Each structure stands twice: as structure tokens, then as C-alpha cells.
């Protein structure tokens, strides 16, 4: 559908990738609702997926007592809700991640504070 307007409506796409220092990636941790929402991070496409896990993520999710217990080899990943297997040795771009993609991870056995999904 198009926006109905009295004269032609302008195409103003505010959040195209060229306006950011790096493409945005959204990341959520399943069953850990103590973090109220998934996060939004600008991450260079050349960043290796494994480096993302070791670098930025502790600063983002480290406040949760479960975080230190994560075994990343057992994490299950989802991209746009579908099961997905990233390669930790490849970059975000090589893993097929682009601007405004959304990924989530599950950490089996780690289900939040006392298993409450918090």
C-alpha cells in the first residue's frame, strides 16, 4: 500500500546504512528478560563473529549472572527467528549479516534467574 496524500509523498528513508558509522545489528538473549529488550549495536562488517562474542558482548550482557557461564559452542542461534549457524571465525559480513539484521541466541541450561527466564 502507499501513503495517501494530497500531493506526492516524499521518500525519506531515515536509517539507511550510509548514515551510520557501521551497520546496525540487533541482538537478543532468549530467556533473559532482565534485559528488557534486545540490543542495537553498530558493528563493523569486518568484525569476526567470535570477536564479537568475546569483545562487545560481555559489556552488553555481562551484568547477568548467567553470562559468565555461557559455553558459546552450545549456544543456539536464530536469524530473523529462524535457526541459523554462524561461523565464529568468519566476519559478520561473511556470516551474511547486514544492516539491521536481528539475531538471537539461546543458552541451553541457562534460563535466567533461577530458571525464571528473567
Amino acid at each position: 500500500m502507499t501513503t495517501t496524500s494530497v500531493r506526492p509523498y516524499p521518500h525519506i528513508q531515515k536509517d539507511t546504512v550510509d548514515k551510520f558509522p557501521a551497520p546496525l545489528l540487533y541482538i537478543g538473549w532468549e530467556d533473559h528478560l532482565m534485559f528488557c529488550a534486545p540490543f542495537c549495536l553498530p558493528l563493523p562488517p569486518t568484525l569476526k563473529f567470535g570477536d564479537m562474542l568475546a569483545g562487545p558482548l560481555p559489556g552488553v550482557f555481562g551484568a547477568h549472572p548467567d553470562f559468565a557461564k555461557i559455553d558459546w559452542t552450545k549456544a543456539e542461534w536464530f536469524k530473523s527467528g529462524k535457526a541459523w549457524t554462524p561461523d565464529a571465525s568468519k566476519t559478520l559480513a561473511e556470516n551474511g549479516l547486514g544492516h539491521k539484521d536481528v539475531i538471537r541466541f539461546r543458552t541451553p541450561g541457562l534460563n535466567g534467574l533461577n530458571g525464571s527466564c528473567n
Partner: protein
Amino acid sequence: MHIDLRTVNIEPLRQTFDHIAARIGPDKQASRYLEGTMDVQAAANFHYRPTWDPEHEIFDATRTAITMKDWYALKDPRQLYYGSYTASRARMQETAEADFDFVETRGLADSYDDAARRTALDFYIPLRHVAWGANMNGASMCAYGFGTAITQPCLYQGMDQLGVAQYLTRMGLVLGDQGEVQAAKQAWMDAPQWQELRRYVEDTLVLKDWFEMFVAQHVALDAMLFALAYTEVDQALNAKAGPTVSLMTRFQTELFEDSSKWVDASLKIATAENPENKLQLQTWIAHWRARAVKALQPLAQQALGADSEAALTRVAARLDTRLVKAGLLA
């Protein structure tokens, strides 16, 4: 629990909101007018373009050719915010109510001179439509203008004009009846002497530049129409048949005095802002004033006969005086 708190003297952390303090200084208490007016319009980061005006932002200073470094310079000297506005108009309506009541209970309308009655009905009652146009323009200026300092009084003035239209209607019913009110509407639609004025009003309704509308409505038309109707014609009828009509048009007389203060101040500030504004305002005034004079001539003639020319000269001179004060006329 109740504790007597009146006895506590505590020092406030600040006197007013930061955006007000930035204008008046941090140590001053701000008036309710200032706190309710200054900077209250959103000015940044609008989310979507209007589907009804995709070329502009929701509030957009470029909807007029007039430019201001700070649109909040256009303060209302009456300092009207909603509370003081309604208090003021409630007093005026109370007076008007008492006057109408006086006219009706003393039978002043029934005993009113018939020739004067004819003049009054023919001249005043079609003006309810002019006021209705002014009401629509007030809404426009409020909606599409920039900065609450000026958009706020534009709506107040528009609603005042609706009040004028309703008082005129009521006078039509007191001096005449519903048939007279309908006849006046017919004259507004068809009678040759009303057509220039109707054209004028309809032409203002489609103006795109809201400040030009301000000039066409308040400066060119109302300044002369109110002076003609509520001074010249009023005095003539008074002399002929006593103050019955004056009583029923008192609201308009008071309104004219009140709103002129605001119109003059706004003009003066916009003129002094920069030479381009001054030139633009002069151009608009020249255009609309000439049209207003042309539109009012046949009506003055109809109401005042041979005296009409002198009356219109006085009306124009009064406008000139106002324009000189505003810096628009040497």
C-alpha cells in the same frame, strides 16, 4: 496525617523552567503567560511529513515569507493565555448579556426608529458572514503559523469573531426576526453592494501565506471595517435613534480596542525585524488595503449616504496612524 506546612519556609531550587529562564534570567519568577506560551510548540525532530502538506514539516517557519530570528519575539502585549483570555471574554459577555437584556426588557427594539432599524439590519447583519470568514482565518493562522506567541492569539481572535457573528445574529433577531437574518444572508450572496466584500473574504480563505492572511484580515479589513461599523455607523445611528444598536454591539467595540493592541504590536515587531519583512508587509498592506477600501465604499454609502466619504477618510486616517506607529508608514 496533616501537618501545618504554611509555616515552613523553604528555598526553591529554581524559579522557572529552563527555557523560560534562558529568556528572562534565572532568578526571576515567570508569569503564567510566559510559562504557558514560550517555546511550547514542538520545534525539532518531527517524525512524519503531513500528508496534507508533504512539502513542509508539521510546524514550519517557511509557510510564510516573513522571517524572524525568534518567533517568540511576537509576544501578545495583552498577555493572554487561556485563563486570562476566558476571564476577559467572560466579563465582556456578561456586559453584553446585560445590554441585550436591557434592550429586550425595556422594549427598546420595539420602539426603535424604523428607518434606523432598516439601516442597522441592512448594514450589520450581513457582517455576521464576514466574521465567520474571520473565524476560519483565525483557525488557519493558528494551525499553520509558527510559534505559540502568535498562533495562540490567532485562535483567540478567531473565536472572538465567532462570538461577533453570533452577537450580530442575535441583534438581527432582536431588531428583526429570522426572516431578516435570512434576507441579510441573501444580500450577502446577491446584492451588488456586498459582492466586493464577499469576494475579499473568499479570496482571503485561500491564501497560502498565513502572515499575508494576518495582514489581509486584521490590518487591512478589520482595522477599517470595525472602525466603520462600530464607530462611524454606530455614531450615526446613535445620533438618529439613540444607543440601542450601541448596546448590542458593545462586545465588538471592546474587542476592537483589545485586539488592535495585539495587531499593532505584532506588526511593529515583524517590521522592525528586517527590511525584507518591512517591504513584504508594505506590499501586502498596499494590495489588501486598496481592496478593502473598494469593498467598504458601497456599504458606507448604503449606511451613511452623503457622509460616507468623510467617514471612510477618517477610517483610513486612523489606519494610517496605526501604520505609522508600526513603522510601516513614514
